[in-house]
């Protein structure tokens, strides 16, 4: 366990890299997932088709394959960028499909009359979704959305293996092998790092859920 103290700066830098990765990917996933969910309930058939196709592809493809496609597929067709960007992209593509489905279930939980009334007073589809339906949907969506985001935090360890490096898990691997620390101690530290990310995240979501529930 001494490794956690000896190599504390490395843990901190790995933690910060992972934090940066999951913050960016989390925000983008929620935005993109919401847009895709809007596509899926939109009155325009081609948009619905895009939404359904998106979810079908990315929800049913292993994350490692999606990350492989972004990290190695995109450079193959001449798209060069940092592996951090590719990693974020892969995580966002994958996670957005799950966010979309969580939000869509929330949209379905809002009674149809709400959307009808919104349309009847002259709100456009976008306005009725963003002003009336989604704010009510987000409440029921918080618990499943929380699970999706916590899964994404853990999935970021896989993204780290696709060239990003320097994240919590990759630094752990570096310590065990190149520097020869024993795996048990190193990975205990890595696990602690992830728990520091996921547990407060879960608590925050719980608080948010209670707050929004009271506002009704």
């Amino acid at each position: 366990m001494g490794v956690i103290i000896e190599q504390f700066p490395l843990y901190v830098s790995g933690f910060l890299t992972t934090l940066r990765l999951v913050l960016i990917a989390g925000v983008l996933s929620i935005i993109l997932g919401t847009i895709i969910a809007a596509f899926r309930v939109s009155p325009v058939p081609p948009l619905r088709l895009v939404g359904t196709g998106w979810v079908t592809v990315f929800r049913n493809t292993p994350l490692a394959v999606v990350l492989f496609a972004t990290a190695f597929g995109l450079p193959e067709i001449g798209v060069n960028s940092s592996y951090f960007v590719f990693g974020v992209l892969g995580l966002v593509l994958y996670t957005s499909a799950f966010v979309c489905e969580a939000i869509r279930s929330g949209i379905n939980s809002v009674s149809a009359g709400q959307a009808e009334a919104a349309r009847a007073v002259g709100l456009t589809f976008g306005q009725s979704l963003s002003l009336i339906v989604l704010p009510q949907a987000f409440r029921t969506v918080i618990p499943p959305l929380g699970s999706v985001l916590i899964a994404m935090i853990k999935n970021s360890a896989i993204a780290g293996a696709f060239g990003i490096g320097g994240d919590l898990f990759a630094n752990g691997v570096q310590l065990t092998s190149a520097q020869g620390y024993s795996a048990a101690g190193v990975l205990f530290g890595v696990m602690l790092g992830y728990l520091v990310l996921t547990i407060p995240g879960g608590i925050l979501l719980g608080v948010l859920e209670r707050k929004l529930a009271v506002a009704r």
Partner: protein
Amino acid sequence: MTRSSTPMIRMAAVDKHFGDLHVLRDINLEVDAGQVVVVLGPSGSGKSTLCRTINRLEPIDTGVIEVDGKELPEEGKALAGLRADVGMVFQSFNLFAHKTILENVTLAPIKVRRMPKGEAQTHGLALLERVGIANQKDKYPAQLSGGQQQRAAIARALAMKPKVMLFDEPTSALDPEMVQEVLDVMTTLAKEGMTMLVVTHEMGFARRAANRVVFMADGEIVEDASPDTFFSNPTSDRAKDFLGKILTH
């Protein structure tokens, strides 16, 4: 702008199916500006569907629907613009559950009419005053009684200064003791000259406030007459049968 020769609502040769069910059959109906038309009929006669086609909450298969001389556009910005001019009151109120009563009334004027917030609030409060629930303005819909919610819903529709108001069985979901307070508001509106199409089972309101009664059965308009004529002298068997059941009840 409305010339007296242009009806506020015009439906011509309108047909609609729900699958195999022919819910609207060759509907021809005109409602002039300032008129109050009450649509009666047994349940399943298509009267609610008729009401909902006028602002295209239900699309139609064939035929023409015009509001103030303009044909209903396809789903999109233009339709949203038209709906803003057509107020609608639902059976189940459908107030925005996450907004206060005042917010319910001011939301559309601010977002659709681009009215400044302060002005929308002043206007909204005046409307809540008119329907008698100004003291409830900061509550959420779930905290109000059914009658209060429906009056708030009427105020929400009026806030858009609509050219015409559609009422889709506005009192059917209410406890009996709350029916009157809603009908009172509607009667006042009718007296003030609002163009109204009201789907209801309230015969008293039809007699008191309507200029015309339209009787529907099996998706067809069977009779279209003044309230006096309709109630005292119905011509069709189906209307006689319907009235017999209602009035002896």
